[in-house]
Protein backbone atom coordinates (compact mmCIF):
# COMPACT_ATOMS: atom_id res chain seq x y z
CA UNK A 1 0.00 0.00 0.00
CA UNK A 2 1.45 3.30 -1.12
CA UNK A 3 1.78 5.91 1.63
CA UNK A 4 2.55 8.91 -0.54
CA UNK A 5 0.57 10.60 -3.30
CA UNK A 6 2.23 13.29 -5.40
CA UNK A 7 0.39 15.15 -8.14
CA UNK A 8 1.19 18.02 -10.49
CA UNK A 9 -1.80 18.92 -12.62
CA UNK A 10 -3.33 21.60 -14.81
CA UNK A 11 -6.73 20.65 -13.43
CA UNK A 12 -8.42 21.96 -10.30
CA UNK A 13 -7.05 20.43 -7.08
CA UNK A 14 -9.47 18.35 -5.04
CA UNK A 15 -9.37 18.56 -1.26
CA UNK A 16 -11.52 15.44 -0.92
CA UNK A 17 -9.06 13.36 -2.93
CA UNK A 18 -6.20 14.40 -0.62
CA UNK A 19 -8.27 13.85 2.49
CA UNK A 20 -9.44 10.40 1.40
CA UNK A 21 -5.93 9.36 0.42
CA UNK A 22 -4.49 10.01 3.88
CA UNK A 23 -7.45 8.61 5.87
CA UNK A 24 -6.33 5.60 7.86
CA UNK A 25 -7.82 3.69 10.80
CA UNK A 26 -4.43 3.83 12.56
CA UNK A 27 -4.56 7.62 12.61
CA UNK A 28 -5.83 9.97 15.26
CA UNK A 29 -5.80 12.99 13.03
CA UNK A 30 -5.26 14.61 9.67
CA UNK A 31 -3.49 17.91 9.12
CA UNK A 32 -4.16 19.74 5.86
CA UNK A 33 -2.53 22.86 4.47
CA UNK A 34 -4.39 24.56 1.63
CA UNK A 35 -2.66 27.34 -0.27
CA UNK A 36 -4.96 29.93 -1.84
CA UNK A 37 -4.33 32.68 -4.37
CA UNK A 38 -4.19 36.05 -2.59
CA UNK A 39 -5.65 39.18 -4.22
CA UNK A 40 -2.76 41.48 -3.39
CA UNK A 41 1.04 41.66 -3.27
CA UNK A 42 2.66 44.53 -1.38
CA UNK A 43 -0.38 46.72 -1.81
CA UNK A 44 -0.89 45.96 -5.49
CA UNK A 45 -4.08 44.25 -6.65
CA UNK A 46 -3.38 40.88 -8.25
CA UNK A 47 -5.74 39.88 -11.08
CA UNK A 48 -4.64 36.29 -11.45
CA UNK A 49 -1.58 34.04 -11.32
CA UNK A 50 0.09 31.64 -13.59
CA UNK A 51 2.22 28.74 -12.34
CA UNK A 52 4.69 27.02 -14.61
CA UNK A 53 6.88 24.07 -13.70
CA UNK A 54 9.75 21.91 -14.82
CA UNK A 55 7.26 19.08 -14.70
CA UNK A 56 9.40 15.96 -14.44
CA UNK A 57 11.80 17.44 -11.92
CA UNK A 58 8.99 19.05 -9.92
CA UNK A 59 7.33 15.66 -9.50
CA UNK A 60 10.65 14.10 -8.45
CA UNK A 61 11.29 16.87 -5.89
CA UNK A 62 7.74 16.59 -4.53
CA UNK A 63 8.22 12.83 -4.17
CA UNK A 64 11.52 13.42 -2.32
CA UNK A 65 9.71 15.69 0.14
CA UNK A 66 6.99 13.10 0.69
CA UNK A 67 9.57 10.36 1.22
CA UNK A 68 11.63 12.51 3.59
CA UNK A 69 8.51 13.40 5.58
CA UNK A 70 7.66 9.71 5.92
CA UNK A 71 11.15 9.02 7.31
CA UNK A 72 11.50 12.13 9.45
CA UNK A 73 8.10 12.13 11.17
CA UNK A 74 5.85 9.44 12.69
CA UNK A 75 3.17 9.80 10.06
CA UNK A 76 1.07 7.27 8.15
CA UNK A 77 0.41 8.97 4.84
CA UNK A 78 1.09 12.18 2.97
CA UNK A 79 -0.38 13.74 -0.15
CA UNK A 80 1.29 16.67 -1.95
CA UNK A 81 -0.69 18.15 -4.83
CA UNK A 82 0.24 21.24 -6.84
CA UNK A 83 -1.55 22.96 -9.70
CA UNK A 84 0.00 24.60 -12.75
CA UNK A 85 -1.48 26.99 -15.30
CA UNK A 86 -3.73 29.98 -14.76
CA UNK A 87 -5.29 30.39 -11.31
CA UNK A 88 -7.83 32.95 -10.18
CA UNK A 89 -8.07 34.70 -6.81
CA UNK A 90 -9.17 32.14 -4.22
CA UNK A 91 -8.13 29.16 -6.33
CA UNK A 92 -5.98 26.48 -4.72
CA UNK A 93 -2.42 26.06 -6.04
CA UNK A 94 -1.25 23.60 -3.38
CA UNK A 95 -2.61 21.06 -0.90
CA UNK A 96 -0.58 19.11 1.65
CA UNK A 97 -2.45 16.46 3.65
CA UNK A 98 -0.83 14.34 6.37
CA UNK A 99 -2.25 11.69 8.68
CA UNK A 100 -0.66 10.39 11.85
CA UNK A 101 -1.48 8.49 15.01
CA UNK A 102 -0.81 11.62 17.09
CA UNK A 103 -1.38 15.19 15.98
CA UNK A 104 2.04 16.76 16.47
CA UNK A 105 3.68 14.61 13.82
CA UNK A 106 1.01 15.60 11.29
CA UNK A 107 1.35 19.33 12.05
CA UNK A 108 5.15 19.15 11.87
CA UNK A 109 5.23 17.11 8.67
CA UNK A 110 2.70 19.40 7.02
CA UNK A 111 4.80 22.47 7.81
CA UNK A 112 8.00 20.72 6.74
CA UNK A 113 6.43 19.74 3.41
CA UNK A 114 5.09 23.18 2.46
CA UNK A 115 8.25 24.98 3.62
CA UNK A 116 10.50 22.61 1.68
CA UNK A 117 8.27 22.72 -1.40
CA UNK A 118 8.62 26.49 -1.48
CA UNK A 119 12.43 26.14 -1.44
CA UNK A 120 13.15 23.21 -3.72
CA UNK A 121 10.34 22.31 -6.12
CA UNK A 122 10.93 23.90 -9.55
CA UNK A 123 7.66 25.76 -9.93
CA UNK A 124 7.42 29.47 -10.72
CA UNK A 125 4.62 31.93 -10.10
CA UNK A 126 3.87 34.86 -12.36
CA UNK A 127 1.59 37.56 -10.95
CA UNK A 128 -0.61 39.58 -13.28
CA UNK A 129 -1.51 43.15 -12.28
CA UNK A 130 -3.59 45.85 -13.96
CA UNK A 131 -0.40 47.36 -15.39
CA UNK A 132 1.68 44.29 -16.18
CA UNK A 133 3.08 41.01 -14.99
CA UNK A 134 6.04 39.91 -12.92
CA UNK A 135 7.82 36.65 -12.07
CA UNK A 136 7.72 36.31 -8.31
CA UNK A 137 11.09 36.24 -6.49
CA UNK A 138 12.87 36.57 -9.76
CA UNK A 139 13.78 40.20 -9.98
CA UNK A 140 17.15 40.08 -11.75
Amino acid at each position, binding site marked *: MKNTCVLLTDKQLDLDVCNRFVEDPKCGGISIFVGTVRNHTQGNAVLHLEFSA*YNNMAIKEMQKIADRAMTKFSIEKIAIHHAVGKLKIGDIPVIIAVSSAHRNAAFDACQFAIDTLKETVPI*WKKEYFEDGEVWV*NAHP
Partner: protein
Amino acid sequence: MTVSVLFFGVSSDLAGRASAEMELKEQADVTSFKSQLFSEFPGMKNLSDFAVAVNEAYSNDSDSIKDGDEIAILPPVSGG
Protein backbone atom coordinates in the same frame (compact mmCIF):
# COMPACT_ATOMS: atom_id res chain seq x y z
CA MET B 1 29.21 17.33 -27.33
CA THR B 2 25.67 18.62 -27.50
CA VAL B 3 23.36 19.31 -24.57
CA SER B 4 19.84 20.62 -24.48
CA VAL B 5 19.18 23.62 -22.27
CA LEU B 6 15.79 24.54 -20.79
CA PHE B 7 15.06 28.04 -19.49
CA PHE B 8 12.40 28.41 -16.80
CA GLY B 9 10.67 31.35 -15.16
CA VAL B 10 12.31 34.71 -15.71
CA SER B 11 15.32 33.05 -17.38
CA SER B 12 13.19 32.33 -20.46
CA ASP B 13 12.55 36.08 -20.79
CA LEU B 14 16.25 36.87 -20.32
CA ALA B 15 17.41 34.23 -22.80
CA GLY B 16 14.62 35.15 -25.21
CA ARG B 17 13.59 31.50 -25.57
CA ALA B 18 12.42 28.46 -23.64
CA SER B 19 15.03 26.01 -24.90
CA ALA B 20 18.27 25.77 -26.84
CA GLU B 21 20.98 23.36 -27.86
CA MET B 22 24.54 24.13 -26.86
CA GLU B 23 27.84 22.68 -28.05
CA LEU B 24 30.13 22.16 -25.07
CA LYS B 25 33.80 21.16 -24.94
CA GLU B 26 34.57 17.63 -23.76
CA GLN B 27 35.04 17.37 -19.99
CA ALA B 28 32.65 20.22 -19.37
CA ASP B 29 31.37 20.76 -15.89
CA VAL B 30 28.65 23.00 -14.50
CA THR B 31 31.11 25.87 -13.95
CA SER B 32 32.36 25.83 -17.56
CA PHE B 33 28.77 25.43 -18.78
CA LYS B 34 27.74 28.58 -16.89
CA SER B 35 30.52 30.71 -18.36
CA GLN B 36 29.60 29.54 -21.86
CA LEU B 37 25.93 30.20 -21.08
CA PHE B 38 26.74 33.80 -20.15
CA SER B 39 28.63 34.35 -23.42
CA GLU B 40 25.95 32.77 -25.63
CA PHE B 41 23.05 34.35 -23.73
CA PRO B 42 24.36 37.65 -22.32
CA GLY B 43 20.92 38.44 -20.88
CA MET B 44 21.49 35.66 -18.36
CA LYS B 45 24.10 37.84 -16.64
CA ASN B 46 21.15 39.85 -15.31
CA LEU B 47 19.94 36.86 -13.33
CA SER B 48 21.75 37.27 -10.05
CA ASP B 49 20.82 33.91 -8.60
CA PHE B 50 19.86 30.65 -10.24
CA ALA B 51 20.34 26.91 -9.86
CA VAL B 52 21.36 24.50 -12.58
CA ALA B 53 19.71 21.11 -12.88
CA VAL B 54 21.37 18.30 -14.82
CA ASN B 55 18.99 15.57 -15.92
CA GLU B 56 16.25 16.71 -13.56
CA ALA B 57 18.39 16.96 -10.41
CA TYR B 58 20.04 19.94 -8.69
CA SER B 59 23.74 20.08 -9.54
CA ASN B 60 26.95 21.32 -7.93
CA ASP B 61 29.41 23.50 -9.84
CA SER B 62 31.94 20.66 -10.06
CA ASP B 63 29.48 18.10 -11.51
CA SER B 64 30.53 16.90 -14.94
CA ILE B 65 28.28 17.13 -17.96
CA LYS B 66 27.90 14.41 -20.58
CA ASP B 67 26.80 14.40 -24.19
CA GLY B 68 23.01 14.49 -24.45
CA ASP B 69 22.40 15.78 -20.93
CA GLU B 70 19.35 17.93 -20.28
CA ILE B 71 20.39 21.07 -18.44
CA ALA B 72 17.82 23.38 -16.88
CA ILE B 73 18.20 26.95 -15.66
CA LEU B 74 16.17 27.37 -12.46
CA PRO B 75 15.63 30.87 -11.06
CA PRO B 76 14.59 31.01 -7.39
CA VAL B 77 11.42 28.94 -7.20
CA SER B 78 8.09 30.40 -6.14
CA GLY B 79 5.60 27.56 -6.00
CA GLY B 80 3.18 26.87 -3.18
